[in-house]
């Protein structure tokens, strides 16, 4: 397993959000689904060291990670595309992409090659290479955020609600790109747009009230009555 999370507990102040979540990611693409407030982003934040876990373990490539500082998690090989993108708006696309690799041991030595791959995957970024990121549209910024994460040559790419705030045509484009990526990189994606994301994942977990209520393959989730009624709106 690339990532192995066991009995993870976390919250904010006195509010418990995660109640003993266990999940794993191998060389595959895994989805985390659930309604708003289910705890999806908190799982990501705990893995990335943004939120300190109350209990449980997080193991990445055999190393215990719980409570580790965010920059060390990134350097270990986990790249995050956050919900809010968290880009550097006053810097160019070129600088944003460069910073994605510059401080990560896995990315720095192969920065030029990674840049080629990213620009091939998102040709629009080549056109806007010198443009300030803050002046770009939400969809283009999302591509910069994914490109920046890929620059790190991560062992695990985490995407938190990649379709949030995007128009449907861009959402489809983002998931098409993710489907291409899953051949080479392990992916963990949280998403409310279950229909689109089922195209890009191999396996998924349904999280409700801070606990895993369902785990299945993408094909299994697509026909599961609970998923169909609660998330696919059929």
């Amino acid at each position, binding site marked *: 397993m690339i990532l192995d999370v066991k009995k993870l507990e976390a919250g904010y102040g006195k509010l418990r959000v995660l109640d003993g979540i266990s999940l794993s990611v191998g060389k595959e693409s895994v989805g985390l689904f659930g309604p708003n407030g289910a705890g999806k982003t908190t799982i990501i934040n705990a893995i*990335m060291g*943004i939120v300190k876990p109350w209990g449980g373990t997080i193991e990445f490539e055999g190393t215990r990670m719980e409570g580790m*500082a*965010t*920059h060390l998690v*990134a*350097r270990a090989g986990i*790249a*995050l595309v*956050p919900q809010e*993108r*968290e*880009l*550097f*708006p*006053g*810097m160019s696309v070129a*600088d944003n992409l*460069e*910073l*994605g690799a*510059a*401080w*990560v041991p896995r990315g720095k030595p192969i920065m030029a090659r990674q840049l080629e791959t990213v620009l091939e995957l998102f040709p629009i970024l080549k056109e806007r290479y010198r443009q300030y990121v803050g002046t770009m549209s939400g969809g283009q910024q999302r591509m910069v955020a994914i490109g*920046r994460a890929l620059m*790190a040559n991560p062992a695990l790419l985490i995407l938190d609600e990649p379709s949030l705030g995007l128009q449907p045509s861009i959402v489809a484009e983002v998931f098409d790109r993710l489907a291409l990526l899953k051949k080479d990189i392990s992916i963990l994606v949280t998403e409310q747009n279950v229909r689109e994301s089922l195209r890009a994942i191999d396996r998924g977990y349904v999280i409700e009230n801070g606990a895993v209520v369902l785990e299945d393959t993408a094909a299994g989730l697509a026909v599961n009555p609970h998923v169909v009624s609660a998330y696919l709106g059929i």
Partner: protein
Amino acid sequence: MAIKRRTAILVALGIVAAVVVALWKPTVLIYGMQSAGLYAAIAIPMGLVLGIVHIVNLAHGEFMMVAAYASYFACTASGMDPLLAVLPAAAVTAGFGLLVYKLTIRRALKSPELNQLILTFGLAITFSQGVNLLFSSQTRKISLEYVSASLTIGELSFGVWPFVFVFVAGAMAYGLKLFLTRTTTGKAALAVGQNPRGAAIVGIDVDRTYGLVFALATALIGGMGALFLTRSAIFPGVGGPFTMKSFSLVAMAGIGNIPGILGASVLLGLSEALMRAFRGLRGWADIIFFVLIMAVILGRSIKGRKS
């Protein structure tokens, strides 16, 4: 496009105003630019800290005062010229700045801004009163021959040494621009200033970067402390007015806008020199920065309301 046109109009107006002032009262232009150089060289490190660490360092001028005292005693004990003390002063102040950052400022970064202001204000008082207790309030000065060099053009005679600060300010601004846009560490600092969480996500050690930037800023102000000895006498309260003026320049320029600090310094320097050129207004020259900062804030408020 509209912004470029507006900037071009402002620059053109500035040049016209400078030519008029130069013809009408040339001393205003000369002394104004000399003051502008000094103000900019002192304000730029404060702008760096505010732009990246996002803290208003009210002990900024006091760091310069402490460095000036250390340089003064080193120079008088060894007979060294203050110019030779610039680099050692910068290095020692950087270490001192890093220590102050680690022991105090770092712990207040996530606190409300008022707490940060109180902390740095406390540091300012501690530094100035500490120096006062140790060395008294007596003014100290190093006499140097080369600083009295003057130039005569027609009937006008003026000292040339203060122009050194104009070059120092320019070099500081250009050097920082190169550092922040061309080096990996500089780009990381810029990234941390724009989005600390985003920076941590890409593997940048935010806390270390804050410490590095604070140490760099105190190194620059420490070097300025040694250089300041060539121009003025020093005393424990010498840094306070520079903190206030630096803050007003940084606020006028806008957070993180280092070229803007140069422009604001020229405006302040010329305004002060203009006030001093008229006998009845001389006493008001030292508080003109209050008027300028109020005018800038008012202008921004009106602009913000319109947009």
